[in-house]
């Protein structure tokens, strides 16, 4: 191992006129390395005003240019960046108390002013910790994972060699607060001097427009791109858009976060006509292996990574991207095939103790999946209910329950199915039926999502949340169910419980807020109508549209279910002034 890290020369020694990135819409505009240097300097001025070198900084910033500039400024001072996985207050608070300050586009986050010439610090020591990732897995609290410059350098060098970007435009649909987006969408282009697409590109319409534009553009050079994506956007690439021209400018698509189903890989390949290369790894391990399912299903370890199967059937590996030189075990089961390649067989059995009995949750999931009405199921332990299990079930689309009776009957049938194998004390008590498997932007069912799915158990004022889907930044569809135990049902019309209209309005505002769609104080309502009564056990879909109008934020909502429309209308909110407390 060398005594210094090459990484800093990536930004210290560059051609300042070259494009660091491109704004692509409405008209293409290059952002030079000179500009990037100015932003590094601006962050250095800000950091200098906030604390002495040697500090840790909490950094969350959506804008890739500002994020990269902040990271470089932190490193050049000899400091360390702590990256929360998202910007929810609960994710930030535990880090904020142990860092010098919050930086970026978050509440109480400092952002820099005018551009300023940067200054470069000393060489980086390989063993210095560059950053700490806080990633919440499917269980429990976020884990802190430190990355040294040696680890980052090893992985960046390997990728530059294995999958060189060759100056192509890097377009990202994933968060760079996580290891995959951080490496592939920020550090790789930085290290290899490939330009970054600075226009946000999370939605397929925008992606299509940018790629189509690229294929005919004479302004943007290079004219080919590498797409950094994940299962959720790839699975949902809409077929009603024409991808033919867009596909011509794509050189390669990467996907990581969770495995793509074979069908999703096929779907994306057909539309994009580009290799869909998946990366398997984790925050701890970095990249482990890759595959292209259009070629074969098995995974091939990256150069330098050794993968074996231990005597319990789990994957263990040795890798230059790990913190240690030894072997580390993963919770995934595998089958080795020839030449070091392997097939993943799912996670190691999840074992729970319920009512004094030990059982495999994995086996229960598999048992549920054999029911003819079940596509997929995941049994979960709930933090405050040690004696009972919850379960998330995706039924076949024609089996999704839309009212109390259908839900009661489906649960009865699933309970009976499990009771042939399990004692009734371990059969799940809390059932959540989803029409689309809940996952975060990396394609993972995370602990916060599980908490949200079962939150109505502890707060009987809430509707039961069963999933949200954004089709654009301003439009969101939310699946809801009316819990039979909802507090507002009691006493409204004795004997005939219905959800009062005022409660529906309250939910619309709260959900718009929670989804980050619209925040503000209630101003007025217009054209609000309540049609079909909303009854306990009903399933309903809430469609929310945000628009900015001269008289405030307008939230247009429609709540509909199996029997028709329950309510619709418009709610006007007065946006909060910056600095207002919410």
């Amino acid at each position, binding site marked *: 191992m060398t005594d210094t890290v090459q990484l800093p020369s990536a930004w210290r020694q560059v051609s300042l006129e070259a494009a660091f990135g491109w704004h692509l819409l409405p008209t293409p505009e290059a952002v030079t390395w000179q500009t990037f240097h100015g932003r590094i300097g601006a962050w250095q001025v800000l950091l200098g005003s906030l604390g002495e070198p040697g500090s840790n900084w909490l950094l969350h910033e959506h804008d890739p240019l500002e994020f990269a500039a902040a990271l470089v400024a932190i490193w050049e001072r000899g400091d360390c960046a702590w990256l929360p996985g998202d910007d929810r207050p609960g994710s930030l608070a535990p880090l904020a108390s142990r860092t010098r300050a919050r930086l970026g586009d978050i509440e109480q986050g400092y952002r820099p002013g005018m551009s300023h010439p940067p200054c470069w610090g000393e060489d980086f020591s390989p063993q210095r910790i560059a950053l700490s990732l806080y990633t919440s897995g499917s269980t429990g609290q976020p884990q802190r994972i430190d990355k040294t410059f040696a680890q980052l350098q090893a992985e960046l060098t390997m990728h530059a060699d294995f999958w060189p970007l060759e100056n192509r435009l890097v377009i990202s649909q994933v968060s760079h607060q996580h290891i995959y987006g951080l490496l592939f969408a920020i550090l790789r282009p930085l290290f290899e001097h490939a330009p970054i697409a600075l226009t946000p590109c999370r939605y397929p319409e925008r992606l299509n427009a940018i790629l189509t534009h690229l294929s005919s553009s004479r302004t943007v050079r290079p004219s080919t791109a590498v797409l950094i994506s994940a299962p959720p956007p790839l699975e949902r690439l809409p077929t009603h858009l024409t991808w033919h021209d867009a596909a011509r400018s794509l050189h390669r698509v990467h996907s990581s976060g969770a495995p793509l189903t074979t069908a999703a890989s096929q779907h994306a390949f057909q539309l994009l006509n580009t290799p869909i290369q998946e990366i398997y790894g984790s925050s701890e391990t970095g990249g482990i292996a890759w595959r292209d399912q259009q070629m074969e299903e098995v995974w091939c370890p990256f150069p330098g990574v050794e993968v074996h199967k231990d005597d319990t059937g789990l994957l263990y590996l040795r890798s230059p991207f790990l913190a240690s030189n030894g072997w580390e075990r993963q919770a995934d089961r595998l089958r080795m095939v020839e030449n070091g390649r392997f097939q993943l067989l799912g996670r190691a059995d999840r074992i729970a103790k319920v*009512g004094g009995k030990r059982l495999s949750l994995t086996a229960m999931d598999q048992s549920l999946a054999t029911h003819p009405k079940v596509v997929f199921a995941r049994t979960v332990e709930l933090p405050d209910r040690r*004696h*009972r299990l919850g379960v998330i079930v995706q039924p076949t689309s024609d089996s999704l329950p839309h009212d*109390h009776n259908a*839900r*009661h009957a489906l*649960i*009865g049938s699933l*309970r009976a199915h499990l009771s042939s194998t399990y*004692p*009734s*004390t371990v059969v799940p*008590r*809390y*059932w959540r039926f989803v029409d689309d498997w809940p996952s975060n932007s990396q394609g993972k069912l995370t602990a916060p999502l599980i908490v949200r799915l079962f939150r109505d*158990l502890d707060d009987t004022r809430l509707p039961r949340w069963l999933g949200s889907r954004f089709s654009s930044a301003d439009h969101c569809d939310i699946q809801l169910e009316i*819990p*039979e*135990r909802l507090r507002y049902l009691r006493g409204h019309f004795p004997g005939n419980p219905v959800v009062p209209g005022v409660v529906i309005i309250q939910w619309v505002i709260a959900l718009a807020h929670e989804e980050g769609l619209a925040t503000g104080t209630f101003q007025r309502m217009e054209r609000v109508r309540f049609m079909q009564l909303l009854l*306990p*056990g009903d399933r309903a879909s809430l469609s929310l549209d945000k628009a900015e109008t001269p008289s405030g934020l307008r939230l247009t909502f429609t709540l509909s279910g199996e029997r028709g429309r329950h309510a619709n209308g418009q709610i006007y909110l007065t946006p909060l002034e910056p600095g207002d407390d919410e």
Partner: protein
Amino acid sequence: MTHSLELELKQMIIDTLELEDVTPDDIDPDAPLFVEGLGLDSIDALELGLALQKHYGIKLDAESDDTRQHFASLNHLAALVEARRVK
């Protein structure tokens, strides 16, 4: 049994055991509460025993055959409450 006591007991069972997919109308007063019928189990029996103590001051011996009798159906439970309630 009075209608109000029937409804009260049904609500107590639903709330105590967090039976999300059950409304009072779903509970047949004559049907078994355990195994078939409502499908309750031994842990539920313990929880219900505690609830009866809290709401009505009734103490049950979980091991006795009587207890099983009392939990046979909602009507049996109501009869127990009417006969032995102290609050």
